[in-house]
């Protein structure tokens, strides 16, 4: 019972605290945004970890899928719930935005999952560094595709998502995005955890360790790759949708290879195949980015330098392939990650 309840209760308490603090403006908008970014980055890093860590592929185009999710959900929510210059009158009454929003996010995730096919299908025939290139190419293809669709702003970017948030706030004046980011972060983690801790999902870990043995010992490796890539890119898409609505503006440039690099850094900083590692590194990385903001451009010298030094000391990432509960067995009382 203790194991079953302690984590949900703690998470609920955390959510309530943050929401109340935000509601009464004890924490300002800046800090709220950082908290939101932490959540989004947790989804990004743990979803990429599914492919790069658990399955052992080297996908470097995660930002492409984030972009698909961001754009699809933004366009949907703007078209459905707001008066827009391009898309005209809202298709649904704006007061339903708070119900429709999670569905819109899911739609973005599903679209991103299908974009994941761009990478998943070639992965049947090729792996390793060749697949890495395909992922980079996929990232570029998605970005340039967006740039060439004028209706959604092309290279100028797309905005109007703030109005969706306002529509939600018209119904109830609460920090909606904190709620959504929190909810979807938790759901993503649960989904990933349940996947890799099931015998079915462990098929991808078998692929990482010996693909030939996996295929011969009854794992349908192609199907598993398809599922892992689609799950990973789908979750990235949800993260993208959240990101777009937190910022209120998206631009194809913000999903280029640099964004993918950030995702990679979080995965390898945390440790390949460690969910808690990915969470931890997402938190650390997001905070680091914000703490070093005053350094301006030097920040982008300092952070890589810091990471290089860190990797010299821990060449397997913070957690290696272990989970927090492996290092502190007492935690197993409260939750199990494997």
């Amino acid at each position: 019972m203790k194991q079953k309840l302690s984590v949900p209760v703690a998470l609920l308490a955390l959510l309530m605290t943050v929401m109340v603090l935000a509601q009464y403006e004890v924490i300002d908008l800046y800090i709220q945004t950082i908290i939101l970014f932490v959540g989004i980055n947790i989804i990004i890093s743990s979803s990429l970890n599914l492919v790069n860590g658990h399955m052992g592929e080297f996908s470097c185009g995660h930002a492409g899928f984030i972009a698909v999710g961001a754009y699809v959900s933004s366009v949907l929510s703007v078209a459905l719930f707001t008066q827009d210059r391009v898309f005209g009158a809202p298709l649904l009454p704006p007061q339903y935005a708070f119900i429709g929003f999670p569905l819109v996010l899911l739609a973005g995730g599903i679209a991103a999952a299908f974009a994941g096919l761009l990478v998943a299908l070639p992965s049947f025939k090729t792996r390793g560094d060749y697949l890495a290139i395909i992922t980079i190419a996929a990232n570029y293809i998605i970005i340039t595709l967006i740039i060439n669709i004028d209706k959604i702003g092309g290279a100028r970017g797309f905005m109007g998502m703030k109005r969706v948030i306002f529509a939600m706030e018209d119904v109830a004046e609460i920090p909606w995005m904190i709620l959504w980011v929190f909810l979807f972060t938790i759901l993503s983690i649960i989904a990933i955890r349940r996947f890799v801790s099931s015998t079915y999902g462990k098929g991808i870990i078998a692929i990482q360790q010996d693909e030939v043995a996996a295929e011969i010992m009854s794992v349908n490796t192609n199907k598993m790759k398809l599922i892992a890539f689609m799950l990973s890119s789908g979750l990235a898409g949800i993260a993208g949708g959240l990101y777009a609505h937190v910022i209120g503006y998206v631009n194809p440039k913000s999903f280029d290879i640099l964004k993918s690099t950030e995702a990679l850094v979080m995965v390898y900083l945390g440790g390949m195949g460690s969910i808690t590692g990915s969470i931890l590194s997402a938190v650390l990385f997001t905070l680091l980015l914000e703490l070093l903001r005053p350094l301006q451009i030097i920040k982008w010298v300092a952070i890589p330098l810091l990471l290089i030094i860190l990797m010299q000391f821990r060449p397997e990432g913070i957690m290696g392939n272990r989970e927090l509960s492996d290092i502190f067995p007492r935690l197993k009382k409260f939750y199990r990650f494997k």
Partner: protein
Amino acid sequence: MESLVQNILNALQWGSFYSLIALGYTLVYGVLLLINFAHGDIVMVGAYIAFFVSSLLLGHYHAIPIALSGGVALALTIPLTMILTSVVGVSLERIAYRPLRRKGAHRLYVVITALMCGLILENGNLALLGASRKKFPEMVDKVIYTFGTVSVTNLKIAVILTAFLVFFLLQFIVTKTKIGMAMRAISYDKFAVPLMGIPIDSVIVFTFILGSSMAGLAGVLFALSYPILDPYMGLTIGWKAFIAAVVGGIGDIRGAFAGGFILGFVEIMVVAFFPSTYRDLFSFSILLFILTLRPTGLFGVPKTTKI
């Protein structure tokens, strides 16, 4: 017809840059199985080094007694840039990659380190030199040869010739010299190479010298052709050259060379017929398509798994 010839010439030049850079990727990859993601930025560093060296030689800083003439300055700039750039490349290997390898880190951690090194080079440059772009000095008078409506500059011819020259030189080094054979041997069997009497580290350093000096050369030629330098200039061209190397079959010199030209042709031809915003979309889709047909690149040999 004329515009086709013109486009082919442009594609050859554009492809030459990709090829020179792709060769550097492929050399390092062939030896270490390391995707040296900092390579594109080393090209940028090469261009900047060339900028400072040539400015110095042309007497812009009043640091040398006489200002050299453009031709002499260029003749000195090229080897100096290649040497200095390879110092940068080898330093990265010594400071960042080698210690990680020694610790037995997962291969991908070295790749991430390379990515980080690239970021440091770009942003370090921006922090040091500021955001203003540098104008590369013009060292050789531009000569334009016209054949009917097709025109070609002396620079364009030089770039294309250099790329071919470098390719044949590398091909010779890798297949005919002892150290070149050692380079090829390492990727097959790391432990057998020292038995041949060649220390692994020397081979690796030699590889980085070769690769980075090619990057330096590419930097000079690029700066001569497109004389505006900025710290992020190596980023996109680097990624694309890497893709070109893979399409050719990474680790294979002929593959990198061919891949670079294929990418160059595709890009120039797309722009000739479509709006330029479609360039990346088309070129990457085509590359993706090639890789789907030949999963290990044009020259890559599929690895057979033994069980």
